[in-house]
Structures are given as C-alpha cells and as structure tokens.
C-alpha cells in the first residue's frame, strides 16, 4: 500500500456558509497503479491531487503515506516526505524561465544536497533517457510546449520518486504531443512508477488502470 485516504473533508467558509471542496474521500492506492482523476471544472480534482501531494492541508480525516500518518506530521517532516517520494508535473510545466534545461533538471538535486559529480551523472542520465541531450543548454522559452513538458517530467523523475502527480499534463499541448507524453507515462508506469493524473480527456484516462470520478468534491 502506497497511500490511503480515509474520510477526507476539506472546506472553506464563505459568507457564513461552509463550502466543501472535498467531501468524505476514501482512496487506497497500491504501488504500481496508474490512476486518472476525472470530473468537471470545480469538482475538486486539483484539490485532491494537492492533498495527496501534501501541498494542501485538509480539515478532517486521515492520510497515511507509506505507513506515516501525514495528518499528524509537522510541516517540516511532511516536506521531507514529499521531497523524497513525490514528483510533480504541471499543466503549464512551471519550469524556471531563467535556467537552462540542464539547470532545471539539476535544481531538485541541489535541494536534496547531492554531490556535484552525482548530480552531473544523474542529469546526464535523464537527458539521455528523454532524448533531450541536444537541448540541454536551451532555455524553456526556446522549446516547444511538448518539449517543455518533457523537461518537466524529467525534472519530476530525476530524484526517482515512487509517485508522480500530474495535473492535466497534456492540457497545454496539441494532440500529437499529448499522445507522446501519455505514452511516456505508460512506459514509466510499466517501469514501476505509480502515477496519479488529473485529466479532462477520456482518451487520456484510458491509459490508466483505474478512473476516479469526482463531482462537487465527492467520489462517484
């Protein structure tokens, strides 16, 4: 068992009323799964992903990640936990504009205090694996959307996480680029990486092994 959500509630108070963003979410994720979260805009997909990624807090319920109960952890431990095990991929890539491809890839390693030689090897490895060696000295703005997302995924993967959280990874891409990215995810999943993605597209959802549908913060 990689992670387990029990009776998760999240709400905001607005104008005296409690508006639920997540309502009684129960979810078990095994290692090696490829889950797609679907639902209309505002149904809570991204919120759920953020909760799983420990970026966002919840108001009620329990969350266990690799036998650690996240809801009782201090901020610092929680940060260490997701730093160690989780990689994020965003719809708008979120690469650092002023860094080159190579430097973008290196950034997470810096924060994890890898040695210079190790970092070099790992970055080279990743560039190689994603076939972007030729682009290593370019800046994000000089790449196409698909290539930027490729770098984004490479960055998420570089410190070998157990779980990849992807928030509409193909949302800003054309269909051909999107397909390539999804193929990549599929391949990663086959190599043993657990993936949870938020998506609007039925076609993309089919790449996954399981689909979770959300409506108004509720699993249906």
């Amino acid at each position, binding site marked *: 068992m990689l992670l387990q959500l029990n009776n998760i509630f999240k709400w905001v108070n607005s104008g005296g009323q409690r508006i639920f963003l997540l309502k009684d979410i129960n979810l078990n994720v095994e290692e090696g799964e490829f889950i797609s979260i679907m639902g209309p805009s505002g149904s809570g997909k991204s919120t759920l992903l*953020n909760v799983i990624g420990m*970026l*966002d807090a919840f108001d009620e319920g329990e969350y266990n990640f690799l036998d650690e109960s996240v809801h009782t952890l201090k901020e610092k431990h929680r*940060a260490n936990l997701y*730093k160690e095990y989780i990689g*994020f991929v*965003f*719809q*708008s890539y*979120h*690469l*650092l*504009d002023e860094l080159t491809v190579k430097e973008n890839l290196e*950034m*997470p390693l810096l*924060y*994890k205090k890898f040695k210079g030689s190790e970092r070099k090897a790992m970055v080279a490895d990743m560039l190689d694996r994603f076939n972007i060696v030729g682009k290593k000295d370019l800046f994000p703005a000089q790449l196409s959307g698909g290539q930027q997302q490729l770098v984004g995924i490479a*960055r998420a993967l570089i*410190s070998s996480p157990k779980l990849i959280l992807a928030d509409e990874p193909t949302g800003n891409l054309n269909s051909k680029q999107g397909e390539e990215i999804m193929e990549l995810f599929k391949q990663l999943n086959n190599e043993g990486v657990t993936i949870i993605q938020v998506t609007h597209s039925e076609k993309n959802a089919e790449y996954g092994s399981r689909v979770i549908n959300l409506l108004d913060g509720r699993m249906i």
Partner: protein
Amino acid sequence: MYKLFLKIAWRNLLKNKVFTLANVIGLTLAFAVAILLSMTALFELSYDQFHTNKDSIYQLALSNQTPKGTRTSTASPVPLAPSLKNEVPGIKQITRAVSEDALVTYQEKELVLDAHYVDPDFFAMFSYPIVLGNGNHPFSDKRSVAITERTSQLLFGDTNAIGKTIYLLLGKEDRPFTISSILKDLPTNSSVDFQIAIPFENHSDYAENLDVWDSNFHEVYVELDKGVSADQFEKNTWEFTNMHYSENIENLVRDGAQPDANNQYKQFHLLPYTDVHFVSYASGSIQVQRTFPYLILGISFLIIFIACANFINMNIALSEKRLKEIGMRKTLGAIKGQLFFQFWTESLLIFVTALFLGLVLGNLLIDPFKILFNTEATLANLTKPSILLGFFVAMFLIIFIAGGYPALLLSKMNTLRALKGKWEMGKNGIRNVLIVVQFVIAIILISGTLVLQGQLQFMRDKDLGYNKEQVISIPLNGKKDSYRVINLLREELQNNPNILEVTGADNNLGRGRDGSLSTSKWGFDHKQRGVTTNILTVDHDYLKTLDIELLSGRTFSPEFKADSLSLVINQAMVKELNETDPISVKIMMDDSIAYTVIGVIKDFNFQKITKEIEPLTLFMNRDWDLYYAYVKVAPGTLSKSFEFLKTAWEKIEPNAEFQGSFLDENIDRTYRREKMMTTIITSGSILGIVLSCIGLFAISLLVVAQRTKEIGVRKVIGASVSSITLLLTKDFLKLVGVAFVIATPIAWYALNQWLQGYAFHISLSVWFFIGAGLLATVIAFITVGGKTLKAASVNPVDSLRTE
C-alpha cells in the same frame, strides 16, 4: 475628465494604504529635513550679501614669506590705512576696524557691549542703515558713538537716546561720549556683529601706535574706485610694501625666506568682503571655503534623492498589480497621453501632500532645529524671489521626473502583454541602480558619522596637557583692576577647603562664555634669527592651578623680585629658539630689555586642537592686565564649588555678569563646528538609512510578487524555507555589496581630507568602513528578510494556482 482622474487616483491611493503611507511619510520627512537643511545652508551662503557695495569692498590681508613658508594675516598696524590711501591710487574709501568688549556706564547701569572701533568711512562703505541721527556720518565728532536699536533699548529704555552721554572704560579711565546715531539692528547674517560703534581714534592702543608699523591689532577694509580691479590694486601696492616694511623684509631675506611668484616678500591681498565669512588662513595662505554650506545642501539633495528613488521604485512595484487595468483601459481606447496623465495625477497627489506636510513639519521643527544646529537661520531668509523661484523649479522637476517616470513606463506598456499581466521591465536595471545609489549614500553617511563621532570623542578625551575637569575660568569683565580682583577672590575663597588654587592669565583656554578667542604673538630676533612665539601673561600659581608639568628650571615665584624679566617657555619654544640648554638663556625682546628663561614646561594644547602646539612664552608682569581668573576646585563637589565661586564673584564685582565656566565646557565650545557637522551628518545618515529601508522594503514586495511562481516551483521540487529566503535576500545583499565597494573609496577620500584639517586626529581605520558596510547589510537584511521569509513560507499551492 480631470475630476475623474483625481477620483480614481484617490481611490487607488486608498487601496494601497501601506504604500501610500510609506511614500507620504518618506517624502514628508525628506522634504521637511531638506527644507530645514537648505535653509541653514542658504543662510550661511547669504552672509554679508546685504551690503549694497559688497562687490567693491575688500578685506586687506598681508602675506609674508617666512623661512617656514607663507603666513597670511589680516591684522594691520595703525598707520597703514591712512598711508595706503595717500600713497596708492584706486581707493575710494578705507576704514580700520577692531572688535572688542567695551564696558559702558550710563547712570547706574553698567554693561559690557560688543564694540566696533571704526573710521567714519565704515558707514559709507557698509550697509548698516541709520534709524536716527545724521545720515551717512553717524559720528558727528571723535567723542560721539553710534549704537543699535536694541542696545538703545537696553540702556535707555524707550526714551530717545540721541544726545545722551555715556561713559566708556578706555584703558584705565572712564571717558564721556555722546550718542549721535541709532543704527538698525544688525542682520544675523552679518559676519561683523557689534552693539556700539566707536571712532577708531579712541581705541586704547591707538595713540601709542600712531607711527608704529609692527604692532598689528586691527583689520582694514577697502572700497576700490570704480574700474579698479583687485589684481591691479595688489600690484600697485608692491612699491608701498617694499618701502614701509623694508627693515622687516631685510630680516626675512636674512633668515632665508623665499620670495613669492611675484618676487615679493610681503604682498597685500584683497579678499572680497563676501568671502570673509568663509576664509581660513590655517595653511598660511588665503583659502576661501564654502564646503560646509554646500555639504549641507548636498545632504539635503541626497535625502530628497533617496526619497524620490523610493517613490519611483514603489510605484513600479505597485504597477504589477495594475497591469490588467492598463491593458483593459488600452483596449477600451485610452491613448498613451491619457494613461500617463492619470498615473501622473496620482504621483502629483502624493507629492503635493508630502510637500505640504513637509512644510508644516519643517515649521514645527524649526525651533528645536535651530537649537540643535546652532543656527540663526529662519524661513524668512528664504523668502527672496530668486530662492522661491528656485524652490518651485526644483519641486516641479522632482515631481515631474520622480512622478513621471513610473507613469511613463506604465503608459508605454504593450496592450496584450499588459492584459496577460506579463511584466517585462528589461531586467530591473533602473531599480538596481537606484538601490545601489541609495546605499552608496547611506554607507558614505554612516561611515562619516562613525568617523566624525570618533574624532569628536577623541578630541574630548585627549589629554590636552592641563587639568580641564577641575578648573573654572572666569572672564574678568568688571571695572576693578584684574590683579585686585584675583587677590580678592583668593581672600574670599581661601577658607573654603574645596577651592584649591586661584590664578589668572590674559587669555582663556578654550572658548569661554564670553565667546572670545584670541592669540597674542611676538616676534623678535634671537642670535640673528627671527623667532615668533605666542605670549601669555600669567599670575602666580598658574602651573599649579592647571597641573601643567614643569620639566626643568623653576616657575615664577614671589621670592624672586625680578620675575617680571623672567620667562617660562614650552618645549616647542625651546625648539624654536634652537637652544640645547635653554635655562638662563638671555633673550633681547625689545631692543633694550633682556629677559631670562627660568623654566621649561611641557607642551600643552593652549590653542584649538586643529593646530600643532606652537611656541609659547609665559610672562609675569604686573603692568600687563589679566583678563581671566582660573580657579581649581576639589573633585567631587564641582557644582557646589561653582555656586560658591559665583556668590563670591557677585560680592567682588556686583555689576559684572559672572561668566565662569569649566575648562572642559570651554573646550567643548570650540568644537561647535565639529558638533554641528556631526549632528547634521548623523541625522542625515539615520534619515538616509530609514528612507532607503522603506524603499528596500517596497522593492522586496515587488520582487516577491514577481517571483511568486518561481518560489512555488522551487518549493514543490524541494526547496526549504531558508534556502528560498536566502535566494531572495542574496540579490539585495549583492546590491549592498556593490554599494559598499563604490562608497568606501569615496568616503575614505572625503574623510581623510577632512581629518587632515586636524593636527591631532584619529587614524582612519578600515573598521569604520567595514562597520558602516556591516550596519547597512544588517539593516538591509532585516528589512528584506521579513518579507521574503513570509513569501518563502507561503504554501506553493497558492502561488501556483494562477493557471
């Protein structure tokens, strides 16, 4: 349209309360302080400008080529002025002038007045208007005097003073004088200040020096004929000097002096009268220095600059939030001019408010300011049309540039980019330059503060070679004979165990409450060589009272009858005489009288600490008056003894004001200029730092806003709060570092120049600058750190949710 702009501007300012407040406070402070400082500076610069003939009036100075270099002095001998007028063409009017205290008696009243002994031409040359009496000739004869309105009020109350007879103590006798004119009170920005003007012939030293060319004690002012240039006149005096000073020049040549560029050993110089207030002869030649007022003007300019830089930076920082508004307005059809005008209106609103508040604040602070900075300046001095015009032009430029620059940037934005909220500012060049300049200013001012405070403290703590803590000096300003007063004091005080010694001398140490500083010098030939020394007449126990160390020989003593022909000299004088064993050396001072050196004392700083210790010779001669009494009191009961002394004085001299003060106070008083400069620079640096920090704070807001996304991304991929804080702060600290590198050489150069003016000064250690740099860094870090720490702790989800 304009009403609408004002309305929008007002709402926008309200919306950003923190920024509006920070801007208004910063600008208000800057304006208030700049107004006060400029007021002081312009007041200083306005000295003596009120004389109608100021462009043709000069002070006469004589430079001497001595073997030790050029020495310039404005003191002149009595026969000089009349001879000069008769023998050298080009003089329209000429006057001698000397300032001295005069003891005035009218019926029961006895007053010490600042007297100015002058020739009749004085009133025709200078613009001191006459209220009552005869026009341009206030002296109807040699027994008549002119007084100012305030003095008239002091002496006669509201009754008409003209024709009244007063008595003046001249030398040792009271002589009657008639008041023939009342002068308007002298403006505060006059370098000459007097309460009573007396015909020069009445000066106590006049008669005996009528034909003496080597007793110099007064100044000479010259007004040249139209069309005569100062240069031309100076050349015309060559023959005159060579003739009248021939003997003196021969001595200079004999002692090995080198002639000046014009092959002259003595040369008259005409110093424009408007320069008199700013002149210094410290280096031997005439140096006119207006550094001080310009320094103050400079500081006020820098403060305004810092505040304006803040305004620009903050406005740009704020614009980030308004990009959508700009884009929207543009799609709705606003043209560049309209947008510019709208934003500029907001700036205008802030500036006008700040300027108004600054004027109000400046006015409220004017009294404490005048006390703190010891200036007579008033805002009324500034209400001249030219100054007001300059003020408005400056304000307009400031508002136009500082307010207009951000407005221009915003109105130039590309519509589409603005709509998308993309801010492309060309790598923050302007912003960084402004911050660096701000910190350069701040670091220079801080290191200036540290060095000035250090020097001031050094001068206060320095061992001057005499006891300054326990000794009180009292100006002998009464009518009684000085030796009698001192003896009366001795008798009166002898039963008080806290009074240790009483003595007297003809000069003060430091500047007393009577405000006077003087030097007496004497030149004579010793072994065929010219020698100059400062001279001081003392009473018994002088060394004991002041704890001055006697190195060899003996001091004056009642046991030796002939001590009026004995001399005690200091170490510098020993060197000047070039004697290995100075004791018993005979010195022919006047051609006929032989003095004998009986003792050598250790050098002590009898003059300002800016000067090296000069040769000094002590005399004891009952025929020469003393002007100050010195009383040493026991430690521990200083203020009680002081009160006791005051009571004793009032018994002895009931009509004379007691002006006694401790020597350390006197010495402190000579540091007036240094203290004022330190206060100005210190307050300037504090204000500079505060304003720079307000600005830096605003910039940190901007940077955080610009880098929100980046912070989020970095956190998501694992950055810790501290590493992000460091990342954001680093950029600012880099700017401070650059500022430090630029500021240090400038500050070092300027401060080194300043310290060179002091014979005794602290050494300029690197730590002053490192200290200033560190202080600036720490303050910058604290300012920026808080905001960035907050930004770094924000949940990245919030910052990444912009999709």
